[in-house]
């Protein structure tokens, strides 16, 4: 029931929101926020009292059943989705236009994402994955900036390719595996069934290729990132909080669950190329961020670069790197949401995110000192400053990947260093200097506007000083699907409690 509740909450609320009176936009916003927060609470309850997996027959002829479950990989993702959705709702302006549709679409996005994370059936996963595309496209198309039409079209096209690749990959997975065995019954797409019928190597390559394309677009990763900069630049900031903080994590989760978990041989064979793609993404994202002239685009490229680190960790597939990957998903989700929340406030107050047009925002009297202070913290977290969420995640990624792909890790390390470059450049130009008197005619941020940033900042700091909060969820699950063992000493230090076979003799 708990698992169903996680899905029913956004579904019911999303259907109810359009029925609420148009004259009460704050009620609509409140219901949406309460729904997401309740989902978060239910997720926390599920963490303390793990629910049993749920399996309901849906379309047996297609092999589609409502198989739901929570494990160490999906639980943190569900919690992240609930949290970021709530924060995105609260970060939306109080005078949000067409609030009933806007918040309903946000909850629909949440429904798709959480559905994908809970799915224990590959077709159900695809269904939920595809569902996400519709509301997110509409959110970009209706509430985006001046170039929203182009952004939405590109977002839709890339999303459609992503979805089709994923569908093709999943179908091929089932058909090549269970069809080849000559079974007369319908193909089952449950994860257990897929895992129980390993594919021949050539089929694994094909399926993994399709999945890499599908999930690579969603992450995104170079060279299939074309939708991201324009979408992040044009979509409303709260929507980008969702896109960057939650939706893109579907790609990471999918690679971890399907690639590493279900196609280990092909993953091992592809991993040098995947690591190389990660390194290229990291460098490409960082260099583009350094020369970006708009804060939103800078953040988009920064996010792309950090996804490169994530892909490197997945490619290495050591227990530590996979732990790092999950930690990076969580840390990046929090950080990118915080960054875009701050960017949204800057845009709402100043009317622009063009770096050249902004300066002196840290001004204590007429600037946005609170917002800029939190943004500085978020930039520091993105740069991997110790004591903040980015540091333990990146440390695990680099340490876990170093033994398998030293060159790619080194490149990613250098690229990660560039985060400090563009962070300092951005902050120096936007926060310091003279605040333009003509432009600085805005009111300071209200407490309600600051709330999401404060919550996210608290979690970023908390995860930095208590990194177990990032890693403990998935330690056992990632160790179970790890394909390689890193350096024995490192391995022992990292995993001694959960890997008795590798512990020192008594």
């Amino acid at each position: 029931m708990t698992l169903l509740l996680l899905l029913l909450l956004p579904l019911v609320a999303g259907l109810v929101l359009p029925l609420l009176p148009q004259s009460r936009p704050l009620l609509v916003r409140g219901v949406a926020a309460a729904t997401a927060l309740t989902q978060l609470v239910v997720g926390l309850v599920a963490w303390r009292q793990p629910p049993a997996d749920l399996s309901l027959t849906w379309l047996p002829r297609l092999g589609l059943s409502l198989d739901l479950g929570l494990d160490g990989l999906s639980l943190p993702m569900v919690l992240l989705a609930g949290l970021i959705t709530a924060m995105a709702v609260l970060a939306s302006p109080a005078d949000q236009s067409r609030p009933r549709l806007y918040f309903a679409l946000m909850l629909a996005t949440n429904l798709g994402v959480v559905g994908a994370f809970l799915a224990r059936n590959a077709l159900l996963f695809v269904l939920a994955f595809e569902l996400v595309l519709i509301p997110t496209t509409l959110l970009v198309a209706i509430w985006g900036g001046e170039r929203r039409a182009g952004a939405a079209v590109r977002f839709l096209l890339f999303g459609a390719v992503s979805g089709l690749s994923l569908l093709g990959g999943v179908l091929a997975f089932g058909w090549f595996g269970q069809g080849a065995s000559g079974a007369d019954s319908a193909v089952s797409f449950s994860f257990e069934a897929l895992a129980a019928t390993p594919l021949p190597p050539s089929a694994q390559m094909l399926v993994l290729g399709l999945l890499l394309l599908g999930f690579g677009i969603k992450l995104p990763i170079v060279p299939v990132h074309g939708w991201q900069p324009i979408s992040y630049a044009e979509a409303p900031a709260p929507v980008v909080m969702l896109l960057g903080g939650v939706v893109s994590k579907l790609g990471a989760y999918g690679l971890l669950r399907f690639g590493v978990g279900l196609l280990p041989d092909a993953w091992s064979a592809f991993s040098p190329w995947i690591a190389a793609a990660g390194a290229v993404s990291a460098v490409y994202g960082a260099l583009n961020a350094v020369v970006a002239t708009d804060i939103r685009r800078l953040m988009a490229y920064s996010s792309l670069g950090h996804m490169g680190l994530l892909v490197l960790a997945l490619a290495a597939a050591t227990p530590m790197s996979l732990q790092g990957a999950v930690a990076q998903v969580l840390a990046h989700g929090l950080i990118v949401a915080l960054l875009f929340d701050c960017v949204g406030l800057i845009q709402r107050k100043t009317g622009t995110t063009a770096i050249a047009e902004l300066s002196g925002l840290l001004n204590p009297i007429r600037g946005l000192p609170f917002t800029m202070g939190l943004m500085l913290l978020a930039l520091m977290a993105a740069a991997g400053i110790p004591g903040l969420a980015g540091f333990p995640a990146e440390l695990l990624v680099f340490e876990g990947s170093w033994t398998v792909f030293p060159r790619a890790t080194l490149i990613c390390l250098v690229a990660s260093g560039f985060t400090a470059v563009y962070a300092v450049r951005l902050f120096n130009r936007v926060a310091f200097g003279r605040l333009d008197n003509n432009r600085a005619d805005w009111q300071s941020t209200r407490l309600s506007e600051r709330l999401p940033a404060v919550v996210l900042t608290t979690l970023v700091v908390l995860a930095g000083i208590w990194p177990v909060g990032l890693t403990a969820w998935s330690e056992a699950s990632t160790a179970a699907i790890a394909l390689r063992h890193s350096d024995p000493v490192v391995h022992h230090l990292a995993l001694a409690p959960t890997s008795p076979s590798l512990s020192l003799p008594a």
Partner: protein
Amino acid sequence: MTTTTPPAGIRTPLIPPSTHPYAEVIHRLEAGGSMLPDTPENLQQIIGIYKAYAVPMDFYWRDLLYIAEQVFLNPLPAFKYFISQEYLDRPNSYAGDQSQLRIWRGGEKAHPELLAFMERGETRRMPKLLHHLWHDRVNMEFAEACMRAMLWHQGMGGRFNDYLESEAYRANADRAIKAYFRGNPLMLGLYALFPEMFLEQVRQLSTTANLGLFWEVMAPVFFEMSDLYDEGQLTSVPQAMDFLVNGIFAVAGRPIYHHVFIRGECFEIIPMSEGFTWLYEAALPYVEAVFYRTSPFRGTKSYNAQAGQVPADQADFHYGILYADVFPVGSAGIPPTLLMQDMLHFLPPYLQELYREHRRGEEDQLVQLGITFQRSMYNVTSAVIQALRCALLYPLDDTDPKHLLANRQFFEAQMDRFLRPEARLPDIQSQDYR
């Protein structure tokens, strides 16, 4: 700023329109106006701020004279801002029944609002020392910074600074120093070893007296302007400027001197008989040093002298309130932030209401107040420019084109000083500059 043609009502056929970048302002000055546009809000702002300025100024002049005349060379002047009751009750020379030369209305003793503030501050009633340490008081640091600017720049006309280097001054100062340290062999020994050090301190104290005497005039002027505005007798910015011009001429010849009182005996370091006058030895140097020049303020904005960001010639300094970037951090000139804090306590209700209506309301009152102060000082500078024109050149309604051209050249030369990008003259032409 583009070149404009004078309005039809003030067009003069005798000389062509100015082609100066500030032609609009110059035409306004030629028509007897101010650099500040004549709008009801500008009038409200400047009068309101004159009132808020006059109350702390009433303390400034009294304490400056107290320091120059009583504290004098005290080697540990920790209590120099703890003005004596005698100086708090000292009759203003130009206002009140006991004044030597009553020109303006108002009482001769310290203003009631000042006394009330000194009693309670903005916190609550507590011992004077705690008010001082908590900075819950009038900031004399601002007044002293103005004095130092006058002392440091020098060479701004008049004979005052030359006199500070004269033998007569040295002899007068020497007598006062020896009298002050009589019975103190340590200080007298130091004086014998480093006489210039002590003389320099006395020169600073003479400048302190100079500024005190200057502000003794200005405080009642501003109070009366506020009263006249409240009574509906001041209805335009040019009227306010004219009031200042008339005030300047009324007291132009009043003496500037420095007397020191040591054990009840008066030592005339700068005697009245030297003939130093208020306009040439105090008002004009003050405007030049404080409104225009001052020095790169060591605040949040950095200046790199080696990179040529600070002019080599002091006369080219441009860090005064007329150039100051009040918004956002008071980054230039005499730290106006301290004065802004002082004025904040005495804002008339209509200014408080005005600030609440714009920008961030009470949150950024200090910035709005600082910009109002900048407007008001442009009006004061306009009065000084008109007074100088009046004293040195020709009437505005003169019919001789040569005379009008001479006036024009004078105004254009004055406006040239605001061609620097830092000048706020273009900003104050707009009501949106807040």
